[in-house]
């Protein structure tokens, strides 16, 4: 191998190789980190909701008269909704999955851990609290892995003061497995008592939900939003929201019917909002989808521009060294030698760039993980990035190198 000649030739026109190596370095740092950021977001976007997202919708009623009585209106509404053709199940709920708003309370297996002066101790976990009427669990279409949904009798009538809804609990709750595993790691949560702080309510766990996600979020809150407690209660407020699950394919027809007739069932209110749950879920993910697309497109362009840079440099080298290449061919170098020369030259440049790029990528990764609380960049991404850039580099240099190899030895004998 003519490594020394190669290095000396590179040294004589060093600016070009240095530029390409710098491009490779930055490209590696960008692509590796973007790939990881995109992966985290795609994971998050594609997380299951756990609910029957395609057949559910929610509708909110806003009352404006003081004598609006949820104790009468809510059961009547649910009965009406359930009587509609195409409706599988309906319930009232303070929270809408994949929607807006969250109620979070601390829960524990031991009431004394929650009452501790000076803050919650070990054994306390935050949980998202759904307060809803009978068959809320069935309406959501979540999968129960043990026990049952809460009984009709457990559902509390609405509190006199709307603000007291949060502490107006029935004696039993249904929780997600994610939460159960945190408080009862041995897997014996069913039948145990769940204590809830701030509202100071004990309740028996009568059912376990395999999986449910309240909202898609990144970071530590992602786990919290899979720790859910379903409480039997009738929310009391001027604004009431219902979840409705329809039979497959009937959702839009039912929504149209609800929009037309539901508000008038009670005087002094109107339909303030309604949305298919699939649309709510999509809205929740829209920002992340935009981000993934933006980052993906920019990263693809970074790679493209770098490849163009490699091709450009190689083509320039070939063009300016036509005569020398011809001479080498004339004095015995085979086509393979010429081809190898360019491939090795490019491989060296890419490797130097990749080496610097690795350091840069790790530095950027550490900075990102500190700034945005991302997990550390896995090294596998770096390895993948380096291999991909080697292959891309060789691919990019292939055509100019082929052209160089095709230079006729006769070129050497020509002047001008």
């Amino acid at each position, binding site marked *: 191998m003519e490594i020394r000649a190669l290095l000396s030739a590179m040294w004589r026109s060093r*600016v070009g190789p240095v530029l390409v190596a710098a491009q490779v370095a930055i490209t590696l740092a960008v692509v590796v980190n973007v790939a990881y950021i995109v992966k985290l977001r795609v994971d998050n976007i594609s997380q299951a909701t756990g609910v029957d997202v395609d057949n559910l919708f929610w509708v909110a009623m806003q009352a404006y008269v003081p004598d609006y009585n949820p104790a009468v209106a809510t059961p009547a509404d649910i009965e009406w909704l359930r009587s509609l053709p195409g409706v599988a199940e309906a319930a009232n709920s303070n929270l809408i999955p994949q929607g807006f708003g969250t109620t979070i309370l601390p829960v524990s297996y031991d009431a004394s851990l929650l009452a501790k002066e000076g*803050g*919650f101790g070990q054994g306390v976990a*935050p949980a998202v609290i759904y307060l809803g009427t009978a068959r809320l669990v069935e309406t959501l279409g979540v999968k129960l892995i043990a026990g049952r949904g809460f009984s009709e009798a457990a559902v509390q009538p609405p509190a006199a003061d709307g603000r007291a809804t949060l502490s107006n609990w029935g004696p039993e709750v249904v929780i997600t497995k994610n939460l159960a595993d945190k408080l009862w790691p041995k897997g014996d949560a069913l039948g145990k008592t769940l204590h809830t702080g701030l509202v100071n309510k004990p309740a028996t766990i009568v059912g376990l939900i395999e999986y449910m996600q309240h909202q898609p979020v990144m970071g530590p809150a992602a786990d919290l939003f899979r720790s859910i407690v379903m409480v039997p209660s009738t929310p009391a407020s001027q604004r009431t929201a219902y979840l409705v699950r329809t039979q497959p394919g009937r959702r839009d027809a039912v929504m149209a019917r609800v929009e037309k007739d539901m508000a008038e069932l009670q005087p002094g209110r109107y339909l303030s909002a309604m949305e298919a749950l699939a649309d709510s879920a999509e809205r929740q993910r829209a920002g992340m989808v935009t981000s993934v697309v933006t980052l993906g497109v920019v990263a693809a362009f970074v790679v493209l521009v770098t490849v163009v840079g490699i091709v450009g440099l190689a083509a320039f080298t070939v063009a300016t060294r036509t005569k020398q290449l011809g001479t080498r061919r004339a004095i015995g170098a085979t086509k393979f030698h010429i081809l190898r020369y360019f491939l090795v030259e490019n491989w060296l440049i890419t490797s130097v760039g990749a080496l610097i790029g690795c350091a840069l990528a790790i530095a950027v990764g550490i900075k990102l993980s500190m700034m945005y609380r991302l997990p550390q960049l896995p090294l596998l991404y770096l390895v993948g990035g380096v291999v991909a850039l080697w292959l891309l580099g060789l691919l990019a240099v292939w055509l100019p190198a082929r052209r160089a190899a095709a230079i006729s030895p006769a070129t050497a004998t020509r002047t001008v």
Partner: protein
Amino acid sequence: MFMHDLRLAFLSLRRNPILTALMVIAIAAGIAASMITITTYHARSGHPIWWKADKLYAVTLDPRDPDANGAFASLQRHPEYPPLQVTYQDAKALYRSDIPTRAVMMFRASRVVAPRKPGEKPVALDTRVTTADFFAMFDVPFIYGTGWSRADDEAPSPVVVLSRYANQKLFAGVNSVGQTLTLNDKDFRVIGVIDAWNPTPRFYDLNNGSFDLPENLYMPFGWTTALKLPNNGNTNCVRANAQVGGFEALLTSDCVWMQYWAELPTATQRQKYQAFLDNYTNEQRRHGRFPRPVNNNRIVDVDTWLEMYEVVGDETRIQVAVALMFLLVCVLNTFGLMLAKFLKAAPISGLRRALGASRIDIMRQHLIEVVIVGLLGGALGLVLAKLGLDAMRALATRPIPGQDDNPARVALQQSLSSMDTQMFFVALALALLTGILAGLYPAWRIGRLSPSTFLKTQ
């Protein structure tokens, strides 16, 4: 001379159309990506009330329990920051201080205007329940009438101020001062209508989205207890023994749900106010409140406030960083291509030198070529950026169920991805900078070459 250089530059660019196109496209792509992301960043990092930025301060106290478990601290990015809002009892106590020039305690609620005649639809109005200083403190412009006085807060007087949109919706845009409005079941008199006012980000309450419109109805603070108004926003009960239950419990327990702002134009006032806050929490500690041993009372100016609570957002920051890295790759790429192109055409420059052109002449001619590539790339980049931003705007206009139909909201959403004049000049500067960064060395290198080298090789 300049025209001659320009002609030479164009001739040179046309000699290698593919190379020229590659350079222009690389710069254009880099500029477009940078401009799209910087524009979004710029719109989100606005200074909503810059003329009073050093006078307005968000006031927060820290009544939290020490978080022994860490389960809740791990959910916050900055567990060391006090809660974003204050409790009702603390707000009331702070309001007694006469150190600030002005002060507001407030929260967001919702009221409904019942149908006034059969067939009419009810109108839901986002409502800000606030003390009297709100309008003067945040320089809210009025079309008709005025705000209310501190005495109206105390009474409370049945008066309200409407937004321009609410006045349009309810009174067809005419002067409605003196008119009566039934909100839920209670009659209120309109005393003022405010003009278009869209502080972006909506700094004074970061609860319900930082990039949304201000409320449509403003109501004296005294109605909080008189009507037992529920708040539309976060209620965060920050102590283990906070009793969560009915409305009365909310007023006395350690649950934060109110925003508090003070106008403190002088450094003396700020010092005095900080001392006042610390005295207050020290005193409360004796009654068993504020269990954390160290005072964490903060008065924070608007810009710091928006930074602390990261209004701009991670996605936007990451996108800007990636786009700028891309632009750097484009600069390096153009640098390389430009150098190659100049060196390839060096014999021509050698000939010009031999015929009497000076080094400066050669350099200038090449620099002009570089600037042309930069400007062409910049122009194409601006067009691409505009297309990208248009696409983003189209995405941003999807209505959210339950929101009112105020056209200003769409305008606000769209303004978050619209290029203003400032951004146009940033793009221009970026394009020139890119071109010059990429071309300065190649032009210098060509100018420095001795003519003999080239004439010999021919």
